[in-house]
């Protein structure tokens, strides 16, 4: 999921935030196309990053307090680096502009996830359709299809050739890849590319809303569950992530703990003598699930889907934090 920018809600601080337990550092920043940069991210201590699967995204909590979602488009066989592609949103003034104009190699950003709402399911054949920066989640899917020796093709559209990122690394796949800049070839010929409905084929598409609307029309006759899409969503994420301390009230034991920046909720409550069983400590296994009775969590785990997050009734204190000043936990 690639989220379009929303207006900044807080002034941009000059000092990068270290407010989060899960933090990554920008290891490389490259211009990939007109208006697109890629970031390579690594753990400050060089440790493994949480595992992910193609289609996954991470939440990046930028130093200006905005949280943005970016698809992972690197190589998961390298456990120490993530790569994301960031489009400069013309209307956006917050996250993407910050990434393009201010974020530098060595800067720290907060990390949430990875989570995957767009998983690659097994199939005999894949048809990938990418529009603009929507190519990013498809890159690891393509690598995977190639690795499995499954038949696949990609239709990749963009405004101009110069605006289309990662064209160079797609070139090795030869005729499986069709690059279609709109200023040279017009709109994508989706029907021609997709052909007749085929129950053994899965269509994966990511791109702007008009492209996905055209795709929906072109695949109206395809069987259920054969077409999977992810769109650029402009979404308000509510209160911005905080880089200041917050209070956690433990309802059953009656204790209140202050969680300072840089310390996990799990660690802070353990110091107060309340033991919560945990295991992976990176928001993937689910062992430390804790009920939330009040307050707004800042979810950083890889487990909850959007609906479960919206329910706001539990969190994973090994990685997740608070957006509100106070959280009340069922402990």
């Amino acid at each position, binding site marked *: 999921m690639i989220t379009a920018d929303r207006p900044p809600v807080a002034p941009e601080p000059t000092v990068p935030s270290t407010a989060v337990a899960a933090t990554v550092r920008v290891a490389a920043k490259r211009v990939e196309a007109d208006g697109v940069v890629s970031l390579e991210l690594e753990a400050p201590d060089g440790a493994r990053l949480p*595992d992910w699967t193609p289609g996954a995204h991470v939440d990046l909590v930028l130093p200006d307090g905005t949280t943005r979602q970016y698809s992972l488009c690197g190589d998961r066989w390298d456990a120490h680096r993530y790569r994301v592609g960031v489009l400069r949103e013309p209307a956006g003034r917050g996250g993407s502009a910050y990434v393009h104009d201010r974020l530098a190699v060595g800067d720290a950003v907060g990390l949430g996830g990875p989570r*995957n709402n767009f998983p690659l399911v097994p199939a005999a054949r894949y048809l990938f359709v990418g529009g603009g920066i929507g190519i990013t989640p498809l890159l690891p899917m393509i690598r995977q299809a190639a690795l499995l020796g499954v038949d696949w093709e990609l239709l990749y559209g963009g405004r101009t050739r110069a605006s289309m990122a990662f064209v160079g690394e797609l070139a090795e796949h030869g005729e499986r890849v069709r690059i279609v800049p709109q200023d040279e070839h017009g709109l994508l010929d989706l029907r021609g590319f997709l052909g007749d409905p085929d129950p053994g084929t899965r269509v994966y598409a990511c791109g702007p809303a008009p492209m996905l609307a055209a795709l929906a029309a072109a695949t109206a006759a395809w069987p259920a569950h054969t077409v999977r899409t992810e769109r650029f969503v402009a979404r308000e994420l509510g209160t911005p992530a905080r880089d200041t301390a917050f209070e956690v009230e433990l309802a059953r034991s009656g204790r209140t703990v202050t969680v300072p920046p840089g310390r996990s909720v799990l660690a802070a409550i*353990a110091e107060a003598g309340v033991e919560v*069983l*945990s*295991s992976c400590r990176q928001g993937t296994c689910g062992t430390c699930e804790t009920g939330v009775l009040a307050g707004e969590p800042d979810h950083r785990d890889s487990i909850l889907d959007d609906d479960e997050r919206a329910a706001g009734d539990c969190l994973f204190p090994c990685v997740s934090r608070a957006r509100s000043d106070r959280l009340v936990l069922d402990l």
Partner: protein
Amino acid sequence: MTLTAEPAHDLPTSDVDPFCPEVLEDPLPFHAALREAGPVVHLRRYDVFAFARYEQVRAALVDWQGFQSAAGVGLSNFRHEKPWRPPSLLLEADPPRHDAPRRVLQKILGPRALRKLHEAWLADADRLVDEVLDAQGPEFDAVPHLTEAFPLRVFPDAVGIPQEGREHLLPYGDHAFNAFGPANELVEKGAPRVGELSAWVAAQCAREVLAPEGFGADIWAASDRGDITPEQAPLVVRSLLTAGVDTTVHGLSAVLCAFATHPEQWRRLREEPGLARVAFDEAVRWESPVQTFFRTATRDVPIGGHVIPDGHKILMFLGAANRDPARWGPDADAFDLARDPSGHVGFGMGIHQCVGQHVARLEAEALLTALARRVETIELAGPPRRHLNNTLRAWEALPVRLRPA
């Protein structure tokens, strides 16, 4: 049981067979010797590289890129040998093939999905404890009457398999876990029934055999959505039936044995029943029902100052890592509810970490809570007897005496 510590830079070696009856009966001295010998020890008998320290075991568990599972997580190397059954889509698979089945099962067995079972399982454990105390009196063997009985009551129902033939579950699991070891007498002992048991288990995985609601039906529903293929669905159900019973039984036996031999810890649980889950994980750390798993190096992998050559098997001693004083302190051998057992590797770690761990914890919480409510003291009524398995640390018999509260 001697380990040859060779000169610096050389790999320590051992001729001990980790799967011989003496070690399986009591692996602790061998584990301590392995940890002491170094971060990597070459086991000459099987030409495998052993890790017994927490640091290397954990590192190897999470490094799926360097140490693969698809060549088998037992001694047998699927690169060269034919597996005894179609490989598991979860345990014996690597990304990318591992992704879809894992994702599906993780959701079905996730803590949120289990909430709807919580109340019923706690009530069922209450009933079981009442029934056993009524029928058996204060002294009985806890293995058949509690630690086998409870998982066999709740888990097959939760999966949705029929009543008939459930007695095959434990022998099938026992053989599957033996088969990760060498082809020794434990494997031979199970061999005559493999065909019959495998056929029964395979038959339970069919959509039309499974109840319309349950983990099995959920797996088939995932296949209907295309999240896994219809060919994968029965094998994912098979994983539940293979890995979901024996392991939990032995985990429950471990925690009951721990309490029977640590009365002060039982008093503490009775004072704070909320510690039931911590108690179970502490017992899983302390006893490590799953003792070992193998992996295979996908390239020359440097670890612990040595290099594991491409294609070679490593043997991770989860039980040894879970008692490594370097991680758990000088009292690593103690069963202690005051300890935070978080981070133990009894369920593994990383992408292959036990997908049923939340189910196991729920079963344990239910049984321990029911016992804590009704039982003042629990003690051994006779010497417990080990059940030997190449992978599992198990009890054949656990005679206990309970004093009702």
